[in-house]
């Protein structure tokens, strides 16, 4: 071996250029990681406020999510029942006999109460169960596609007909059933609705709710055209627009029908309006008995980052809205058909997830902390909510995980 002299530096600049170029390439690939753009706006959407309650003559039913709510497969929806004569709630979810991680959708008409189980994990259709005797016995129905994630994706009428918003097609469709809830047919698809006069004006991007106005099927849509309300009635075999006129302060935003709540002689329609600025969000309720004349509440303007977490009927014709504020606290409002104006309620407990009709004209706030359910009551004359019941729910965490 021998030592040789080292060569002179020749291409230092070229080498440094290579190093710079390589680093830039590494940095550029680093910047385009999978996280980029992951959270595109849910900004214009509304949360799926599945937690809700319905009333029947025999009692109140409610559904709430419990467990580890940040883990989809450890979130278990419960089915709660309070008989009219009692102030105590009990858990009836065992009646569903399946995993409820996808959520429950409730519907009632007279004594008939129906529960749709939203599919989750590998289940793609929706089991349905109905009772006419306050849960003493249950009958099975079956929707052979999944129920959409809207609190009013299922509706029944006293005559026995039913409507459902299914997610079988990419754009969603409405199915109807004549009685048994075991046989369904497609009534109309989003695409078909989009080609109607109503659809051409509204440019709907989702079917969000179904209901009955009398015996006429009613479908709610989320519209893309600002100021247009997507609400259609199947009247005389044709889908006809049947929407309220919005007050001027809400007429420049895009409107989604969030819910169609049945009441004694008509429906209450919950409308969510976004815009004209993205952060401007308002809620309205419109009441109708016939689809042509409407009484509409003034807009309930939501604070920035506040969002509705539950809405439903309470006390026959009052509609409640539960709003989560930016700091996690809750605000509740009632809007009655008679007044058509928002009435703020005393702030419910922070863990409240829905309201329901309570005994003797009171309201119940159902609060959830993990596997504990807390009930607080607001009597008509009270200024505060009083806790009346706690219920431990024995959730089998991990039981839905593959």
């Amino acid at each position, binding site marked *: 071996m021998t030592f040789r002299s080292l060569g002179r*530096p020749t291409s230092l600049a070229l*080498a440094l250029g290579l190093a710079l170029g390589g680093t830039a390439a590494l940095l550029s690939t680093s910047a385009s990681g*999978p996280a980029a753009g992951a959270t595109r706006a849910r900004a214009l959407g509304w949360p799926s406020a599945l937690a809700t309650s319905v009333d029947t003559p025999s009692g109140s039913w409610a559904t709430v999510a419990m467990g580890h709510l940040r883990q989809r497969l450890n979130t278990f929806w419960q089915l709660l029942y309070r008989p009219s004569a009692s102030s105590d709630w009990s858990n009836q979810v065992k009646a569903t006999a399946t995993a409820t991680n996808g959520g429950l959708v409730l519907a009632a008409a007279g004594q008939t109460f129906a529960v749709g189980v939203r599919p989750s*994990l590998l289940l793609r259709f929706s089991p349905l169960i109905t009772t006419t005797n306050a849960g003493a016995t249950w009958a099975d129905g079956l929707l052979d596609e999944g129920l959409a994630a809207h609190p009013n994706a299922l509706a029944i009428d006293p005559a026995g007909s039913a409507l459902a918003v299914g997610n079988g097609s990419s754009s969603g469709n409405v199915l109807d059933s004549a009685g048994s809830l075991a046989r369904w047919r497609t009534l109309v698809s989003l695409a078909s609705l989009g080609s109607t006069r109503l659809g051409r004006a509204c440019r709907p991007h989702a079917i969000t709710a179904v209901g009955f106005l009398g015996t006429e099927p009613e479908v709610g849509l989320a519209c893309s055209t600002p100021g247009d309300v997507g609400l259609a009635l199947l009247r005389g075999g044709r889908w006809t627009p049947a929407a309220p006129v919005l007050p001027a302060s809400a007429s420049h935003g895009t409107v989604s029908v969030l819910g169609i709540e049945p009441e004694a002689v008509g429906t209450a329609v919950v409308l969510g309006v976004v815009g004209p600025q993205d952060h401007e969000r308002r809620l309205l309720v419109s009441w109708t008995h016939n689809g042509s004349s409407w009484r509409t509440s003034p807009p309930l303007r939501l604070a920035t980052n506040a969002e509705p977490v539950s809405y439903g009927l309470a006390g026959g014709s009052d509609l409640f809205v539960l709003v989560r504020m930016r700091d996690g606290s809750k605000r509740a409002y009632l809007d009655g058909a008679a007044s058509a104006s928002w009435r703020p309620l005393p702030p419910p407990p922070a863990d409240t997830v829905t309201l329901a009709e309570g005994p003797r004209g009171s309201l119940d706030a159902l609060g959830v902390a993990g596997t504990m359910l807390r009930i607080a009551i607001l009597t008509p004359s009270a200024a505060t909510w009083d806790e009346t019941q706690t219920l431990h729910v024995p959730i*089998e965490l991990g039981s839905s995980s593959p």
Partner: protein
Amino acid sequence: MPGMNAGLHTNSPTVVAAFHRTLLHQGLVVALLMALLLVAWNVLRTRQLRITGDAVDHRAGRLAALSAPEPLARRVLRVSFGLLWILDGILQGQSSMPLGMAPQVLQPAAASSPTWVQHVDGVMATIWSYHPISLSTAAVWIQIGIGVLLLVAPRGTWSRLAGVASVGWGIVVWVFGEAFGQVFAPGQSWLFGLPGAVLFYCVAGALVALPERSWSTPRLGRAILRVMGVLFVGMALLQAWPGRGFWHGQASPHTNAGTLTSMLQQMAHSPQPQLLASWLSAFAAFDAAHGWGVNLVVVLVLAAVGITLLSARPGLVRVGVVVGIVLCLATWVLVQDLGVLGGVGTDPNSMIPTALLFFAGYLALTMVPDVDASTVVAIGSTPAARRPLRERLALDPTYAFRSAAALCAVGIVLVGVVPGAAAAADPHASPILAEAINGSPQATNAPAPLFHLIDQYGRPVALARLRGKAVAVTFLDPVCTSACPTIAQELRDADELLGNAASKVELVAIDANPRYVTTNYLQAFDEEEHLTSMRNWLYLTGATPAKLRRAWHAFGAYSALSPAGAMVAHSELVDVIGPDGRLRYLLNADPGPGTEATQSSFSVLLATTLRKVLSAP
């Protein structure tokens, strides 16, 4: 119970035992190869002694004297990377490799990389998860074989072949095992192993594979050091780039730790000797307090080493190499945790290969073989491979042994490659996964319980009607969200695996949900799981829930409504009934993690069991 599966743990005793058993069997093959090597060497040596007389010995001695020794730099690379490959092969023999490789090495490596990298690596992760034993043992023998080949073949074709094999296997490991060295992942750094340890193995292999005359001038050494210089300057720039979390430590325990601090804290908690853990903790604390300063030093040293290597000035290069090696060793201990401690270590990480390349580059630059040009030309133009065997045996006394040893090393590689490739080409998973979750099928011999139920179309079905066929009976909930759809797919896959034999088999499920007993639920399940086209598929329910319960009890199965929104709890069994109507095997059908691999594995196990029943006398 659904969701309450036994799971598939990394150190599953069944899999570990099978892994060790396979390694032992293949080790015996390797031992046999070595025995053959000794015989072959003996034969060649005898022939060598016979054909070489004094005259040839003189000639051999003359030519041997003319032959230059292997360049030192090349020898350093060949021996050191040979030893590294052997070490890597031994590390691949860890018990946790078969089941730990995919979830703990392959998937995490690709997790932060772009989707296309995840897709590429996902292919290997899938293949590995299907055949964990075959691929683990393949990796062991391939790496040991390449290492041995590098060690025993110092010159000529075998040696260059070792270099090529090192490059080829290194690329496979770099792409699939290291997700392209994570060069496409954000937040990476030279400190953490960028651009991937195995890339250095590839470089070393490529250098060994070069024609030997390449080492006869300092040009190669200069090129090696320049490439390393470019790499280091690039890594310094990357390390200095703002916004990547390297310029801060951790102001207080309640604030976010910097990238390096966070990594060090994580490493300090991994299992390892106390001394190393305390070093890591101390360095983590130091970096938390002086994150900016630490990064400045790293950036400056990386840049300085890179620039000195690029300068080509002897004094500077020497300093740069020494500083670079010291930096590598310090990083190896303080940041890379020696590469193999904590988690599933498959190699000592990037710092040792980097330091070896520095050293080899420096040797190639400064210590070139002292031979005259004519010898170089003679050696280069008359490769040993072109000489007749008789002459080669005569010229080199060690030729016989080295050739036989090289053949043995190639054999070791093939011991890994052949079963590994065969397994990789098999689209069906090894049944060992299902056995690890549920145990082996339990043989039995008893009269099968009789049942009279109705099928998914309302037709009555009795077991007696199925006599003459092998029958697999299981219990499925039509509204189950996880386990039952998986078991149904396993049955469907088993049916496909049976091929023509499927006509002699009936696959039967009995409704396991006491609430949903109507046939429309069974049909909905069949539609959902694409079972409607299976001619030998029956999904049974009772005309009344009581009849259904009787069927459960007859098979020793249970079903119970769960509280609080959970799935119905029920037995997950498959009873295999022979054509004679006797119960022959009981299989636990817990789908475990329910991955494609475990699903396929259970299908293979069931199909095998059904074939066994069909072929029984």
